[in-house]
């Protein structure tokens, strides 16, 4: 588990986007295993992400005007999972983050904390070898934040590689390694 630290605007999220192949670097190379992520075309990058990558967005990355359950089920949809299994699994993930009662709610009406938990539930739907998390505990109360940290640890113990961009010292404390980006330059 690698923790990326730095003030707001330093480029932590941009670094994660580069790692995910959602952005292209002006210079340099990005490798995930043997895959040269910086060379992947958008379509190929999407296929690679679908197979290898889990992503937790800073703003939860939810699709508006869609229910929490459907948002959580999106990775399963593109993993060609049948509808009834998608719904079952997505509901289980919502249950694991403590918001099964919000399953049919449109995400537009959810609070910031609830939205982040929906985003986290989506991260749990499929197991991926590489997980990128952007500020996973921001906006969560102490109990929920502790649960997130516990889940991140569990993922690491199950063999996933995690790259976490955070301000939270509690998250930084469980990381195996740290990099700091003071003002756009990684140290």
């Amino acid at each position: 588990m690698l923790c990326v630290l730095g003030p707001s605007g330093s480029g932590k999220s941009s670094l994660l986007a580069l790692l995910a192949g959602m952005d292209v670097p002006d210079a340099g190379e990005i490798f995930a295993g043997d895959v040269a992520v910086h060379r992947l075309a958008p379509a190929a990058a999407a296929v690679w992400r679908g197979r290898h990558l889990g992503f937790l967005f800073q703003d939860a990355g939810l699709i508006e005007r869609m229910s929490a359950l459907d948002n959580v089920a999106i990775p399963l949809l593109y993993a060609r999972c049948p509808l009834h299994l998608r719904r079952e699994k997505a509901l289980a993930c919502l249950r694991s983050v403590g918001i099964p009662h919000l399953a049919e709610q449109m995400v537009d009406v959810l609070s910031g904390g609830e939205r982040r938990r929906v985003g986290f539930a989506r991260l749990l739907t499929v197991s991926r070898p590489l997980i990128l998390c952007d500020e996973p505990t921001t906006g969560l109360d102490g109990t929920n934040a502790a649960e997130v940290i516990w889940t991140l640890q569990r993922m690491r113990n199950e063999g996933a590689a995690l790259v976490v961009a955070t301000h939270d010292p509690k998250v930084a404390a469980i990381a195996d390694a740290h990099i700091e980006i003071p003002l756009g330059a990684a140290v």
Partner: protein
Amino acid sequence: MRAADNLRTAAWAFKARPARMGALCVALACTLISVSTLASVVAGYSRQIEEYTFGDLARRISIQENTFLLDRFGPPRIEHLRALQKRVPELAGASAWRSTRVTVKHAKTEISLPLLGVYSETGAGLATLIVAQGRSFSTEELGEAYRGERRICVLGAFARRQLCKENLACGIDSIRVNGVQCAVIGVLQAPHGLAEQSLSDAVITPFFSAARLFERDSEIDVRGAERLELTVREATKTDAVRERVAQEMRALYGSPLSAPPPFQFANDASSLELLANQRTAFAGLLLVVITAAGVGGFVSFAGIMAGMVNERRREIALRSAFGARASDIVWQVLTEAALLALSAALVAALVTTGIVLLLDRFGSAPVALDGTVLALTSVLAVIISLTAAYPVARSAIERRGGLLSG
């Protein structure tokens, strides 16, 4: 992604953005309505001109004696007509005609007019004998059973005007044809097409009445006809039926295939050629109209579609971030576009049908709406929406970045 999931996602897009999808549907439907209404009006004019010009001429085969032969076999006969009706099932009707020039007298007016004698066993195929006043001939009067005892005539509209010296109030109960009294039982309506034109200045009587009572110096015997007119059930089969009729006529005449035929077909081929040219011209006009409206519709639809996909850039990027392949995104956008097209086609079909019914009832323009026009506009809708949506979908998946911040 499965087709059912594609449809579900497309349905969600409709539900999530009703205003934008509604605008797209209306934009496309307006194009389709204008195209299909214009097409209906053009088709209406085409059909009217075709009807006025040719009537059922396109389905007609006219047989005459081949007078260019040295060894004359004689004119076609009533017996030939009856045999053809039995042997060629594709015929909807058949009639035999003979004509001569006669002197017609009414009151103090005496003029020279064509006299036409008509024979038909069923009356079928005599759509041109439509009377405006009085009555037409009964089936019995047109057939074999009626030997010409009664002296009855029907006047063409122009013949009546000549006899009345343009006096519209003039009534004609009887005329003298070559000095023989003839009761006028009806007057034909004014001609609407070429087929009716030839009857408008004539006096028409039953075939055997013409032969036995009114003709003075005809070269054709009583059962001989100047021409046989056959009406084919379907215009598209006219050429094939003509071939069949030619074979049967040779057999009836006993003329071998090695010899020139003792009969000839009248100039129907040129009429059909003219008809084909006219249809091609109207099809071209229709194509221009549809292309112009289609291009206009495509531009506006593509503009709104691009705007909508741009609005959904984040959604598409998120789907892509969670494993949606390029093909998934393209299929999703295309499915939405196809659903839009079908919705717009449905709306357009309903509105166009309403407009056409209103125009037909209250307007002066001839309109003709048929399933082909509606089917073609639906196809046009799908083509427009898919052609507009595809590049938009492709460009959406080619974009990178902008999803994450901070």
